[in-house]
């Protein structure tokens, strides 16, 4: 029984990681065709990527959107997590479920709805509209991370601080904030990754300033650009992996 399971686990990891390995392998392959056997080792796709102005502008759009989204969604998540864990109110568990329902919508639907709203209200499209869309899908994640952090923290810390003479506001800065810190960092990293990787909302809402995933998508029409996309994807894979590992480490440490 045990050996069967371990064997299965091995197979599972291989299948899960095969695409990643192939993406990285072909990004160093000196051929526009994605086919075995591999040709010479080359860095030219990376070089091409570095010199592509459209790509660099898409990258900078993605960074602006992801950083802004991470900060605002973490802030919203913090307030929501404090409200639900520090105060008891009727319908608290309902509120928690309601928060997660929008995550269950196909993003195509959310995208269409937001597009209609922005066009209808005459707001138009910009990096700001993408950020608003991303806030909608990232805040529940921030909330989830921070709620589990707050649930692990005894309210006694804040009560002790008040008992020792600190009013609620100073207690927040001297006790609550420092104790929530690992959760805040973890939330920032997670929402940054989600926003950076998101495609559909960005596609619908970004108008003429595409994000990195939208740029990659647009390059798919040209078969000879595939290696360039793979080089780009490899970079994203490495950076995303590092962020997710850091965030998981922080979450397991705080537990």
């Amino acid at each position: 029984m045990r050996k069967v399971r371990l064997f299965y686990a091995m197979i599972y990891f291989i299948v899960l990681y095969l695409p990643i390995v192939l993406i990285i392998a072909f990004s160093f392959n000196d051929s526009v065709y994605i086919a075995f056997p591999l040709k010479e080792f080359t860095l030219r796709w990376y070089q091409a990527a570095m010199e592509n102005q459209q790509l660099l502008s898409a990258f900078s759009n993605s960074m602006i959107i992801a950083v802004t989204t991470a900060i605002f969604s973490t802030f919203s998540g913090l307030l929501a997590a404090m409200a639900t864990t520090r105060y008891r109110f009727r319908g608290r568990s309902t509120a928690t479920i309601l928060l997660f329902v929008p995550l269950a919508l196909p993003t195509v639907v959310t995208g269409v709805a937001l597009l209609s709203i922005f066009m209808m209200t005459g707001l138009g499209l910009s990096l700001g509209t993408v950020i608003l869309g991303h806030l909608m899908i990232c805040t529940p994640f921030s909330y989830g991370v921070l709620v589990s952090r707050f649930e692990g923290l005894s309210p006694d810390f804040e009560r002790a601080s008040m008992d020792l003479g600190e009013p609620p506001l100073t207690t927040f800065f001297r006790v609550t904030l420092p104790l929530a810190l690992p959760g805040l960092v973890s939330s920032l990293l997670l929402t940054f990754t989600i926003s950076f990787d998101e495609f559909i909302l960005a596609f619908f809402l970004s108008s003429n300033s595409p994000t990195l995933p939208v740029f990659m998508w647009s390059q798919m029409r040209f078969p000879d650009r595939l290696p360039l996309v793979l080089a780009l994807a490899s970079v994203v894979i490495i950076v995303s992996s590092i962020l997710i590992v850091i965030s998981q480490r922080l979450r397991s440490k705080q537990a």
Partner: protein
Amino acid sequence: MTDAFISLQSIRKTYGPVVAVDNVDLDIAKGSFFSLLGPSGCGKTTLLTMLGGLDKPTAGRIMLDGVDVTSVPSYRRPTNMVFQSYAIFPHLSVGDNVGYGLRRQKLDRAEWQHRVDAMLELVHLKGYGDRQPSQLSGGQMQRVALARALIVQPKVLLLDEPLSALDKRLRQSMQIELRAIQREVGITFVFVTHDQEEALTLSDKIAVMSKGKVLQCCPPTDLYDLPINREVAEFVGEMNLIPGIVKGCTTETVCISMPSFGDQQFPVGGRSFSKGDKVLVAVRPENFEIADGPEGRELTIVNRAYFGTHLHFMMTGEGLETPLTVSVPSAIARAHGKAVNSDRMTIQVVPETAVILPQAG
């Protein structure tokens, strides 16, 4: 009554339909070690947090040193609490934890350090100021929590089962230390515990609580020797309750007829009885006598347990609904032979050590 240092007046606390504290009146003397004793859920911790201002009473008034503090929030109240969880701030060093409450006093660095060091010395943690809380043992955490609360020189120190997380040996030595510190600083301590032994050991006065009410409030010896009713008797130490009926009563003695031990005279002890009252004769396990006197009854041993200094026998006999627990010093038990299960042994009630309680309640 009015000159009490702390005075709780008709305090009531409800959470929705649940009554946590039910019309409690208590007076606590200045400089005393006062305990709230009761099983979990009896409302003792709620009462303590209301004293500390971390919770507001639904009704009633709290007077502290002549001032009405009922609606004063915890951060402006001259009380400090040692939490059951200790609540040592994990992101601060031991020294910063102890000095946490000094911020408002705007001391310079040297004075701050001096005060913190002095307090660490009081709780026998000299030189621990730079350690992190994660490096501390349970007993050390308990002392840091104590030092952190005492440094702001509260008028009252509130302790919420501060010893319950410690193991037996450490708990005993912390009890002694706690009592010593209280004597040294002279602050009024209000101590919450569910451990009757701990309450008996430490306190000047104990209030026994149950279901939100105070059942009895008196010094420890009275609580053990003269419990006011069945509930207190059963909660504080082990107690045998032998049912009986009052047959007659003079100003000095009351005659009670017990199905198990026959008729016996007991001192009245300031209570009043009328003929026909159903009562319980409460006898501590160690207060039975092994004797073949006329008042003795032969009972059967159903269980025998060795507790080091004493042997505990469970005994049944005619007219007894539940077995009696009888504690006999090991030396005396040895003198009576093996006394194993199913052996019979003659014991009697010593009237002077028994308490007569009403059967109801």
